């Protein structure tokens, strides 16, 4: 048979890792990306990548990493793939090390590791505080090597409009748009990987990059691919508020000893450094003595939300808490956190080495995504997914520094499975008529959008949707509000048809592109909202005060949404908990005390088990 040909959509960590693996196997790859792949959203990942290398003699192991991840995800993830990921993690970090990622080093020249949320171990390898950028660059370089050898063809400033599905329901390629020339092209492949990242732009302002709309995943969903656990949206506890976006302030700030607090006295107007220790409320350390500021993100976010929104004790009565690094030595801060401190300095104009930062939670990550099997294949045969756009590794809440890992691991698994899929298939070439028909369908839709001349502005409609989603479908969820949100989403879908596209140009027409993507965001917004509405329990990032407990009897289940013209049709499938029996998830046990986790952590010296900087050098 001819040399297999693959399409990879998305040039972040997952897409690039898969591309390198496929190229190593001698295949030819078309790599489609909105942006030059070196600018992909993985560049924003800050704090690090997890792998139980046990460099600090703490007795850490992949098995404990596995347990922390499953427990941190409130038991919603199928366990076998999570186990595979955690056991592959040390090897992945070594691989990145060999590729030249400038990870921070110990004095001996070994890889250094730091603390992150939801674990008591130093398990996170890091390159300053721009780890995602550095790993992305290393993979970008390896891909460039295969590009130079002629195996990889990049389509940058291109977009995947949707998969091409044949009459047997199998994926035969994609239809893609050249976003500069606005021309549509059908591209055939033996297998396609979607590695298109998250969908946080649905929430308007988030920590995500501008392209993270979920659009490609949404069209796959609208063409029959199942979407799972959409309701699980991670809201990161610490971000810098802004008018255009909410900028992440990495968990590594707390990993290096940063402390979260508010003034004990309501409306205390003193400058933060003038407030004596006794008059500061370190609410996370108080309630969670063992994990302190490093409780998992869902918990930290709920606590901050409660302090600011319910108790109205935020700094200056606002939605803000202090994230304080001022007690740490400047040289340590510069070497280990330089990148994020520069972001704060540049965007807020205050030096966080001198003054505590003001932060508030922000939409950050989607645990949910395309349903995939253990080979990363979606419910459309031949269409694979890896990275944030699929649902597999993080259950109901992702632990910090596990996302880079899941991207790279998922990319590796997908590449192997795609090669196997292609070699095991004896199929005639994708019919030309099918490619033509699909290409025509998308061209006609684009022409139709170009002619839309109603009163609605697409960017304004998006902003409205984002504010509504952030208000009602994030930290605290209420069934009445969820229902109202879904009703309004449906109204917005009607209003979409009354959009007037403000640009009729035939070149780099961002208004036409955005208008099409807005529809896809609305479709996914419904999946998220309806998923949340139906899940009457609290688990991980999904919290409903009406149903405050986890309900394993009814909801230890994966949500599976399938598109229909009337909206998402939900079903539930059992979770594979064959390796670690579900147990209650509690992080409040006292420091040094036996916790609910049976993994021998209590043997740790108490210094290591403090989430506070006390005793840390």
């Amino acid at each position: 048979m001819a040399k297999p040909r693959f399409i990879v959509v998305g040039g972040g960590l997952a897409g690039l890792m898969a591309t390198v693996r496929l190229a190593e196997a001698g295949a030819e790859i078309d790599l489609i990306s909105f942006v030059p792949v070196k600018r992909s959203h993985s560049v924003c990942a800050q704090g690090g990548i997890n792998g139980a290398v046990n460099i600090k003699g703490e007795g850490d192991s992949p098995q404990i990493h596995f347990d922390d991840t499953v427990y941190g995800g409130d038991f919603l993830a199928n366990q076998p793939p999570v186990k595979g990921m955690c056991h592959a993690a040390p090897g992945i970090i070594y691989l990145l090390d060999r590729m030249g990622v400038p990870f921070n080093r110990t004095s001996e020249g070994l890889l250094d590791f730091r603390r992150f949320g939801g674990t008591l171990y130093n398990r996170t390898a890091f390159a300053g505080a721009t780890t995602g950028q550095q790993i992305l660059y290393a993979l970008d370089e390896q891909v460039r090597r295969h590009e130079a050898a002629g195996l990889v063809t990049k389509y940058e400033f291109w977009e995947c409009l949707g998969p091409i599905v044949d009459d047997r329901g199998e994926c035969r390629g994609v239809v893609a748009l050249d976003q500069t020339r606005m021309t549509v092209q059908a591209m055939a492949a033996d297998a396609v990987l979607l590695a298109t990242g998250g969908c946080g732009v649905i929430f308007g302002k988030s920590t995500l990059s501008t392209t993270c709309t979920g659009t490609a995943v949404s069209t796959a969903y609208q063409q029959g691919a199942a979407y799972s656990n959409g309701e699980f949206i991670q809201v990161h506890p610490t971000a810098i508020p802004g008018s255009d976006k909410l900028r992440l302030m990495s968990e590594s700030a707390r990993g290096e000893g940063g402390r979260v607090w508010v003034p004990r006295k309501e409306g205390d107007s003193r400058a933060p450094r003038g407030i004596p220790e006794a008059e500061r409320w370190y609410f996370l350390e108080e309630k969670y003595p063992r994990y302190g500021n490093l409780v998992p993100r869902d918990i930290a976010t709920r606590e901050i939300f409660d302090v600011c929104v319910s108790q109205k004790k935020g700094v200056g009565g606002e939605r803000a808490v202090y994230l304080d690094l001022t007690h740490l030595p400047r040289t340590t801060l510069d070497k280990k956190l330089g990148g994020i401190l520069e972001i704060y300095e540049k965007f807020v104009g205050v030096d966080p080495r001198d003054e505590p930062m003001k932060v508030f939670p922000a939409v950050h990550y989607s645990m949910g995504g395309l349903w995939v099997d253990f080979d990363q294949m979606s419910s459309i045969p031949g269409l694979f997914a890896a990275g944030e756009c699929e649902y597999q590794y993080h259950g109901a809440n992702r632990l910090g520094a596990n996302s880079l890992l899941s991207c790279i691991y998922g990319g590796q698994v997908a590449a192997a499975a795609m090669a196997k899929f292609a070699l095991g298939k004896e199929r005639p070439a994708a019919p030309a008529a099918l490619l033509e028909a699909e290409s025509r369908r998308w061209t006609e839709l684009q022409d139709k959008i170009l002619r839309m001349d109603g009163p609605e502005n697409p960017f304004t409609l998006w902003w409205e949707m984002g504010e509504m989603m952030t208000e009602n479908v994030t930290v605290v969820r209420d069934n009445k509000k969820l229902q109202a949100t879904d009703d309004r989403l449906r109204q917005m879908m009607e209003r979409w048809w009354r959009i007037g596209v403000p640009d009729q140009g035939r070149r780099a027409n961002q208004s036409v592109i955005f208008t099409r993507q807005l529809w896809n965001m609305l479709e996914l917004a419904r999946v998220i909202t309806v998923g949340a509405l139906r899940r009457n329990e609290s688990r991980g990032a999904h919290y409903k005060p009406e149903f405050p407990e986890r309900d394993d009897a009814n909801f230890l289940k994966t949500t599976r949404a399938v598109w229909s013209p009337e909206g998402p049709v939900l079903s539930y499938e059992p979770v594979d908990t064959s390796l670690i029996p579900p147990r209650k998830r509690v992080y409040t046990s006292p420091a040094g005390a036996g916790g609910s986790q049976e993994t021998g952590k209590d043997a740790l010296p108490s210094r290591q088990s403090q989430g506070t900087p006390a005793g840390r050098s």
Partner: protein
Amino acid sequence: MPSPAVRVRVRRQDAPDAPPRWEDFSVRREPGMNVIYCLMQIQRSPVTVEGKRTTPVAWEAHCLEEVCGACTMVINGRVRQSCSALVDHLGDTIELTPMTKFPVVRDLIVDRSRMFDDLIKIRGWIPIQGTYDLGPGPRVPPADQEVAYRLSTCMTCGCCLEVCPNVNARSDFIGPAAISLARLYNTHPTGQASAGERLEALMEPGGISECGNAQNCVRACPKGIPLTDSIGAMGRSVTLHAFKKLLGG
């Protein structure tokens, strides 16, 4: 007290061969806002100060936290990322123009693909054997890591090329960014194996000898990368390499 609105002047161009034109917009001020947010406001209401309806401005942006390099443009005469350009520091009129050293695609979007092509030219990667599990990489002293990390934060944004007088229509100078990255790979223990190939690339026409030592690059780099140090170091390596070749080494 700053005025409640900011005037945003944008140099617009529909296509590479279309004539450029200026359009002025009035944008509502919000605390802490940046140039990106000005452009977002224009998207929602693309009307000029004269009340003329126009198209939203086309521009490139991605991470919005100055780590991807996408949103680079010339703002009040200075090349920089528009996400970290805070309106409060820019006066009551903000002038936005596309970078001048790259072909215009539309409005503020330019085609920087030559910078990525140059990374192929300098063989910008560590030649590992493969991505299967071969254990850890070489040990690296922390001091070396700190140098490598700084060099490795290059976003390929193009600021250094924009301000370099030797990057122009009459020259094919590769520019500071690629030279500095060649230094990064050449100092890596594994990258050293192919150091000679990178030096050869920098000896070709358009290579390091085209640097006129204006030193604008190091001042313009948003990431504080020591570009002139890199050019100096690579200049010495190239000279040494040329000598060795001359002596048949």
